[in-house]
């Protein structure tokens, strides 16, 4: 099966620091991929390069065979890539439901002339999926950190994208909640209909430090270290990989 996303020789420098160094990998349409690496290894930067929030110094990003490297980020989203942000940035002054509606609107999936009511219903379903539907009318500024993470995911979900990239989706969640969230993610990936929100089960790229929870849901793991790809493989192999263990300074990855 042809890869959905192809990243070739992607490099990004911040001054003297090479945050992403010549990274190449692919993600298939039916995959759920973990992206791990020590703090500062370039994971967030890599996601931002793919969404177009940052422009690379070298390398290309292809989505469904099309070179999207130079496209503005809003066009990239319309093509079917969305991401959540590690540092959550909701529209604090807007109600939570409106935050999510922006995702529906932006994806361009909402047909022209589609009633706001319908968009609102979709947004409501996305919130329900993430477990914060009861807060729909509140302003985003009242949410706790965990709920903000959920809002981020709901918002990305609302774009009904084909490739969903989650930057630390378990951030701010306790172990129980993490468990639940992991399950939801898996369910989302498998696809299906969530209320009025039709999901074909997006391909996923998930960045996490909570490796235990992550390893249970991913098909494949990419390990970044100092911006370079250190290892790629199924989770069982990765946790035993010498280089990876060394990069994590001997932490037991299992």
């Amino acid at each position, binding site marked *: 099966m042809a890869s959905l996303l192809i990243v070739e020789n992607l490099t990004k420098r911040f001054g003297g620091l090479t945050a992403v160094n010549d990274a190449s990998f692919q993600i298939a349409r039916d995959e759920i991929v973990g992206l791990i690496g020590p703090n500062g290894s370039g994971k967030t930067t890599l996601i931002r390069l793919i969404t177009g929030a940052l422009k690379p110094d070298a390398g290309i990003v292809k989505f469904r065979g099309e070179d999207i490297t130079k496209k503005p980020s809003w066009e990239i989203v319309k093509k079917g890539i969305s991401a959540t942000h590690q540092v959550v940035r909701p529209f604090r002054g807007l109600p939570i439901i*409106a935050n999510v*509606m922006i995702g529906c609107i*932006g994806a361009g999936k909402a047909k022209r002339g589609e009633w*706001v009511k319908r968009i609102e219903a979709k947004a409501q379903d996305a919130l329900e999926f993430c477990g914060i539907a009861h807060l729909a009318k509140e302003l985003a500024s009242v949410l706790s950190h965990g709920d903000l993470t959920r809002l981020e995911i709901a918002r990305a979900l609302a774009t009904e994208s084909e490739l969903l990239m989650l930057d630390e989706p378990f951030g701010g969640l306790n172990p129980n909640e993490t468990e639940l969230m992991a399950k939801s993610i898996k369910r989302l990936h498998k696809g299906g209909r969530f209320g009025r929100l039709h999901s074909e089960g997006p391909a996923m790229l998930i960045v996490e430090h909570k490796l235990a929870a992550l390893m249970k849901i991913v098909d494949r793991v990419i390990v970044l270290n100092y911006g370079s790809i250190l290892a790629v493989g199924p989770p069982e192999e990765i946790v035993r990989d010498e280089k990876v263990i060394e990069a994590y300074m001997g932490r037991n990855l299992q």
Partner: protein
Amino acid sequence: MQVLISGIMIGSVYAVLALGFSLIWGAARIINLAYTSFYMLAAYFFYVGISLLGLNIFIAVPLSIVIATLIGVSTYKFCLERIRAHDVVVILISIALAFFFEECILSIFGHQFHRVPPFISGYRELFGVRVLNQYFVAFGFSVTLILGLWIFLSRSRIGIAIRATSQDKEIVNLMGISEKRVSIIAMIIGTGFVTISSVVVAPIYVVEPSMWMHPIIMILAIVVLGGLGSLKGSFIAAYILAFSEVAVVNWLPMGAFIKSAVALLVMIIVLAIRPEGLFGVVFEEERL
């Protein structure tokens, strides 16, 4: 009673002007001091259409609104958009633009005073207070625009996108909405507000080349008082300032010349107590 009626009438006009300005600030993040130049231009186009070209009022009015708005939006697109990250430069350039437009008008029309006809002439008594019919027209238009804006922002897709854009441009882009396009739309609406109120109030006032100055000062006072970027704040502040102006005229006639100054004073007092304005967002929170 007189204070009440005049206050509401004048306040509504101010509210429309300030809402348009806030909308532009919110979405495009520019303090456009040339904003009321389009107010002046619309009034002049109205004058040209009706008095010089002899057009029907139903043609002259929409035409002048459209042309002035187009000029306003093109000014933004070609002069201000590129530099909008540099606040101070935007302010300087937009002041320069405002004077440029004034000079243009001066060199074409001179320092003459002109008049445009009211949509409905004469006056009416409301609770014993004489109010020009045109003021009712202006009031009607203003209320319609304000309600329309409110529904638009809360119920329409573009409206929601505009609100989101005024909070976080980058994220809006990352949600698949072209923030540039949204800014342009906000710009069209905001400029439309100022040009529409121009053609409805111009028949009350006199059309002259410096007519842009008073409104821009009032607008700045209103948006600062209401909290820059807060539409609700602008709306309420517009009435506060209008009422304080009218109150001065009625209860302190000797001070009628300071009516604007008193309005500004009210602004300063409020700001001393609440630096972020009545409904302003505290900066750090907004930036987070």
